[in-house]
């Protein structure tokens, strides 16, 4: 069991470029989430999914998109990177009836 796996671990993007942050899990989680963490701040929810084919916006969705074509994968897409998207991104999965969510190791993204 690898748990929740994120790739890449680090990335530098130029303003206006696009990229996809990958997240895959092998724990059969129904729920998956994308969070971002800015320095000195807590984790803010970007998008979430309650199952394959179902996604919805979180607290800070602007500039991002997601898809959930399979239970295992939940990629996060940045279309036009902006400096405000410089952050550490965490993907998490949660099963039912588990109370805790399991997090990936994070992707540190810098937009210059």
């Amino acid at each position: 069991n690898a748990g929740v796996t994120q790739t890449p671990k680090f990335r530098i993007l130029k303003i206006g470029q696009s990229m996809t942050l990958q997240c895959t899990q092998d724990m059969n989680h129904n729920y998956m989430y994308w969070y971002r963490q800015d320095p000195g701040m807590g984790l803010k929810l970007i998008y979430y999914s309650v199952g394959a084919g179902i996604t919805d916006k979180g607290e800070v969705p602007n500039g991002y998109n997601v898809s959930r074509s399979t239970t295992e994968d939940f990629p996060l897409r940045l279309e036009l990177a902006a400096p405000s998207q410089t952050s550490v991104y965490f993907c998490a999965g949660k099963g039912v009836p588990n109370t805790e969510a399991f997090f990936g190791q994070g992707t540190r993204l810098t937009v210059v």
Partner: protein
Amino acid sequence: DQQVKQNSPSLSVQEGRISILNCDYTNSMFDYFLWYKKYPAEGPTFLISISSIKDKNEDGRFTVFLNKSAKHLSLHIVPSQPGDSAVYFCAAFVLQGAQKLVFGQGTRLTINP
């Protein structure tokens, strides 16, 4: 609207003593409260949780207390060890729906030898 707040950005405790981390919340609909621990360059890892129907949950050196009337919870670590030095996040969610975790800002705990 900060639904979960950790008002202490940092805390320094001597090894062997008790560490007490605090968390306040505003949403009375929260059903579960969790504490996560985070080391640099790693994802948060689950530490301990408590249901809203309980007032205490204990797991080894870690105890979480919930005071629903005050909308306050705390994490006690006894005795504190150097490996406990990390950032601790308080989080909460509502059981109905997507069970989205709402996080506090985190408290950096430093255990001094």
